[in-house]
């Protein structure tokens, strides 16, 4: 799939920037309250990877299904989750989008097509096949999308699902966010051929690779792939090359990479990248950008306040959602 750079659309650019700013502020706050001990458990931040979430989810429609990874905050935000309820979930409160049952690693809201962040590497691909199967059966013009990382491409379920979607002609978008690290292990240590896009070849699947730090490019690629998948009833495999500035999780002491490497990637920050593009194209001013940043900060601040004020769930209600009626 050859995605040419489209003309910059002001509305789209602004939406992508707004969402990325929201992601960044959201995660910075999560990190902060985590460090204060006000959020327990663990969490996987995607600071630096915002363009993959904003560009990808920005190209989806509300009825499209999205299955995320353990690093799923940004995808949920960009697919349209309610920020207050998501923050409350991460604080473990009863007003959380999953009533405090799931937490950071299991954010989901079926009402907006978010069918779950997942604690396991790989299953998102198979689950998306099933959702796409249902859409296809009902002749619905929508797709199911699975996010997964470069590490997941070495799981059996990756190959099983790629094959299934291909042979059954399922409208699935397989989105590989390639940040080149499986936790601490660099892709070069675990793959002979690190050219991930080649993994679509044996499945005769349409594929594309994009700079995952360029939100507009990601958006255009996924938008085109979405149309292709629906029109042809076929899956598409997209590799979005990016970098995780934040550590893998709270246990990460960054022993496996250099400060220089991180600094280099900070220069390619996806938010700065889009801001620069928009300024150069005359789509907004520096003042407007500062304004958008302030709005994102206010939205997240309100979400934190909502989460902190919300009550904790009650242990006596714990059996309520083990089984469906």
């Amino acid at each position: 799939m050859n995605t040419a750079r489209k003309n910059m659309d002001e509305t789209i650019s602004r939406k992508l920037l707004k969402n990325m700013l929201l992601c960044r502020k959201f995660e910075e706050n999560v990190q902060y309250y985590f460090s204060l001990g006000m959020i327990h458990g663990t969490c996987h931040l995607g600071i630096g990877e915002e363009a993959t979430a904003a560009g990808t989810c920005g190209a989806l429609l509300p009825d499209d299904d999205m299955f995320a990874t353990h690093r799923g905050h940004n995808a949920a935000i960009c697919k349209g989750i309610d920020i207050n309820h998501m923050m409350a979930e991460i604080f473990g409160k009863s007003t959380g989008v999953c009533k405090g049952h799931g937490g950071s690693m299991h954010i989901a809201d079926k009402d907006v097509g978010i069918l779950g962040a997942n604690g396991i590497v790989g299953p998102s691909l198979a689950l998306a096949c099933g959702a796409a199967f249902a859409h296809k059966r009902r002749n619905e013009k929508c797709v199911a999308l699975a996010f997964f990382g470069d590490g997941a491409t070495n799981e059996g379920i990756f190959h099983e699902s790629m094959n299934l979607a291909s042979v059954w002609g399922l409208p699935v978008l397989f989105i590989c966010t390639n940040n080149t690290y499986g936790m601490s292990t660099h892709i070069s240590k675990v793959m002979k051929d690190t050219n991930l896009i080649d993994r679509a070849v044996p499945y005769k699947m349409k594929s594309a690779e994009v700079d995952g730090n360029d939100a507009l490019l990601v958006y255009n690629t996924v938008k085109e792939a979405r149309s292709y998948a629906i029109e042809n009833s076929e899956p598409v495999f997209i590799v979005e090359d990016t970098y995780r500035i934040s550590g893998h999780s709270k246990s990460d002491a960054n022993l496996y990479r250099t400060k220089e490497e991180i600094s280099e990637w900070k220069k390619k920050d996806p938010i700065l990248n889009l801001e620069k593009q928009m300024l150069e194209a005359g789509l907004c001013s520096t003042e407007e950008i500062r304004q958008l940043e302030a709005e994102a900060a206010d939205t997240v601040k309100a979400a934190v306040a909502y989460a902190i004020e919300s009550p904790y769930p009650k242990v006596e209600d714990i059996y309520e959602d083990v089984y469906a009626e």
Partner: protein
Amino acid sequence: MSTQNEMTYAQAIKEAMCEEMRRDENVFLMGEDIGVYRGAFGVTQDMYKEFGTERVIDTPISEAAFVGCGIGAAVEGMRPIVEIMFSDFMSVCWDMILNQAPKMHFMFGGKVSVPLVIRTASGCGTGAAAQHSQSLEAMLCHIPGLKVVVPSTPFDAKGLLKSAIRDNNPVVFLEQKLLYRTKGMVPDREYLIPLGKADTKRIGTDCTIVTYGRMTQLSLKAAETLSNEGISCEIIDLRTLLPLDRMAVLESVKKTKHLLIVHEAVKTGGLGGEIAAEVAESDAFYYLDAPIKRLAAEDVPVPFSAVLEKGVLPDEEKIASAVREVVG
């Protein structure tokens, strides 16, 4: 007037699926070689002719992908029945059975449900050796959010499967290989058997036998023998193992004051321990006149040689001996 037909356990399972597929277009079936081949045990014979290959779907040999696909389709409002050829193959899609299907409703705060049935052939006695003969129900019962069903008769198989298909939770339906060809009466009229309810297959006064699946049939035969000796057995067929019908067990134990638990799965970590513990933790414990006994397979992988395979399993005679021991 309702009439009854004699049919096999396999036919009853097929009838349940066909009726539900006629009733609800969201129900479909997928698995390995279930179309023209008719499934490894012949259960799905000719179903593709009525419903087409769009609803009776042969899959690649990719259990994780097609069970995962079933979960995804269920979340999106369909009601998939997924066949795993042998229950031993749950090992290659365990993430789906353990981490995905049973957790979603809970983890996602009740907003998502997973109306999925996983049908799979379970148990030994066919000479298929250690990787095609296991009884793995106890592992499944350790997973809140799943339901686990093991029918012992054609009548139960049909009624339970229809309920499982209509249930909004993931249900693992463990079909007993050696029962597929056994026959029983099944009514013409539509009926459902609720999940979570045990069935008293024989009323008795001296000893309760709690069991399920094929061991129910062997226990019934043993009870016949024992009745000639003046020992009256009550047989509780659990039918659903998760959730467990604790009350049915406790009430029977209070009545007979003796308890034998029989299953085909290995003893250590088996359901027998759970049932014994339920009794030990309840006031039924005070009614017992003798220690509880478990009769299960030996704690070994299922052996191949027919002599060995028979040797490690409970059978009619072992059940009868165990009851004699319990009632002393």
